[in-house]
């Protein structure tokens, strides 16, 4: 009932958003193909588009999930509707994670195939990037787990902040990352007793040794573990969102 009511009240704006996303994606990929060598978007570039736009569109959509609660009039209607807060939470989660992923992936392949068809050249076969076949080299997990993480951040931001949810969430996130980066750099220098040229959070470190630059990066297994950690963080943030919604008052 709640899902039906939500869909009935929002389907028009969702359809408009689908139209806008398709348009933006088409334009970006069209121009990228046009300036590429031989008008070809190779499968690596296709993957970059898939991932980049997924993060941008996904966080933007998630940041609107509970934005209605900032409007007193809408919040009262939503919170007094006879359904549990968990059911209300679940409908928004389903829309901004599951339904969004299905719709986004469908749009991407529709646009991607159209672009590849548009710039089709006789005798040249271009491989279509298949996200579902990328499980062996960790890309599948990296893409979807990183999406889950940033989506859960934006989801929490939508219920936490009262205005400009997207901007405020992104600002808080980047501020946190900068502080973490600075602390991480200092800590690793102290820990390794070396001057580091680079020390990214959960990323590679670089330093000079015998006048040569040494770069240490995560192994494939560690990268896999990092992806898993993002998923665990997502679950924590989704849970935090639920409790924040539960205690919401007007």
């Amino acid at each position, binding site marked *: *009932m709640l899902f*039906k*009511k939500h869909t*009935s*009240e929002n389907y*028009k704006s969702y359809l408009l958003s689908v139209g806008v996303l398709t348009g933006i994606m088409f334009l970006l990929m069209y121009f990228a193909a046009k300036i590429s060598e031989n008008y070809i978007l190779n499968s690596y570039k296709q993957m970059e588009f898939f991932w980049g736009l997924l993060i941008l569109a996904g966080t933007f959509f998630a940041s609107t999930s509970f934005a209605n609660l900032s*409007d*007193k*009039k*809408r919040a*009262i*209607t939503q*919170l*007094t*509707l*006879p*359904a*549990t*807060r968990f059911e209300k939470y679940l409908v928004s989660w389903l829309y901004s994670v599951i339904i969004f992923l299905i719709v986004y992936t469908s749009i991407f392949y529709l646009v991607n195939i159209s672009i590849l068809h548009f710039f089709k050249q006789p005798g040249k076969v271009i491989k279509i990037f298949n996200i579902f076949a990328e499980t062996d080299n960790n890309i599948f997990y990296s893409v979807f787990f990183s999406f889950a993480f940033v989506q859960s951040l934006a989801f929490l931001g939508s219920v936490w902040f009262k205005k400009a949810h997207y901007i405020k969430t992104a600002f808080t996130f980047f501020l946190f990352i900068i502080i973490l980066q600075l602390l991480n750099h200092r800590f690793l220098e102290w820990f390794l007793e070396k001057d580091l040229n680079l020390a990214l959070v959960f990323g590679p470190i670089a330093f000079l040794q015998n006048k040569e630059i040494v770069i240490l990066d995560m192994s494939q297994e560690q990268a896999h573990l990092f992806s898993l950690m993002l998923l665990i963080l997502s679950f924590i943030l989704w849970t935090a969102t639920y409790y924040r919604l*539960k*205690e919401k*008052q*007007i």
Partner: protein
Amino acid sequence: MIQIENLHFGYSRKSILFQNLNLTLSRGHIYGLLGKNGAGKSTLLKNMVGLAYPQAGRCLFQGINVAEHSPEILSDLFFLPEEIYVPAQSVDRFVANTACFYPQFDEQFFYRLLEEFEVPREAILNRLSFGQQKKVMISFGLATNTALLVMDEPTNGLDIPSKVQFRKIIAMALTEERCIIISTHQVRDLDSLIDTVVVLHNREIILKETLDSIAERLYFTTISDTTGLKVLYEEESYRGKQVILPNEEERFSKVDLELLFNALISGKQNLTPSSNQNYHEKYV
């Protein structure tokens, strides 16, 4: 039906709105909650329906804490806020999507009320005027047949004929099983509508009494000369002096809510039966 026990509430710890507030409301009554702007009427109503959480104390509806937000509780209460939101849908579609959340919803009654208010059922809600939207939501709230109906400033945005219709419709909707609470600062809108008046002033309920009981205690009249009379409160008007007198001769007069309200907020505590030791037990 509604029990507010030792309610402490404030939007921050420094600005406390209610302190140790107690109130009990029963079925079969239409309560008029009166108070000046900013007295905390809306906040009190939000506490009653679980939209605001007390710092201490609790609000019970049929014995259950409203802060639990259980669907069983929410489906038996309807809150109509002062500023309403309506989706971009036809009235019919809105009813089809929302009425199912209220098991006692009476669709026939809803459309009868809409007819009474002269709102077309095929209208798109967000394209209606504010007054028309309010009429739809008042009709919807009444048709839910919830045990508790809370309305915050429902007459704001209604024109004069609609206010008359509103009074008629509310009186029609009251049953022995229902409790209706109407909050307003436009005291005259509640004339001939409520049976019990609740006055909120300076963080506390300073009066909760039935109009019949008030009429037994106090006499409301307009006179030109008050010499020799034991006047409890008076106000100058173009017709003479509007006065409140002790009803020692047990005469009947219609309670002038506006005069009573003005008297109470001007600090005339002798207008409440609070000197009676049993007042709080009996009324609050």
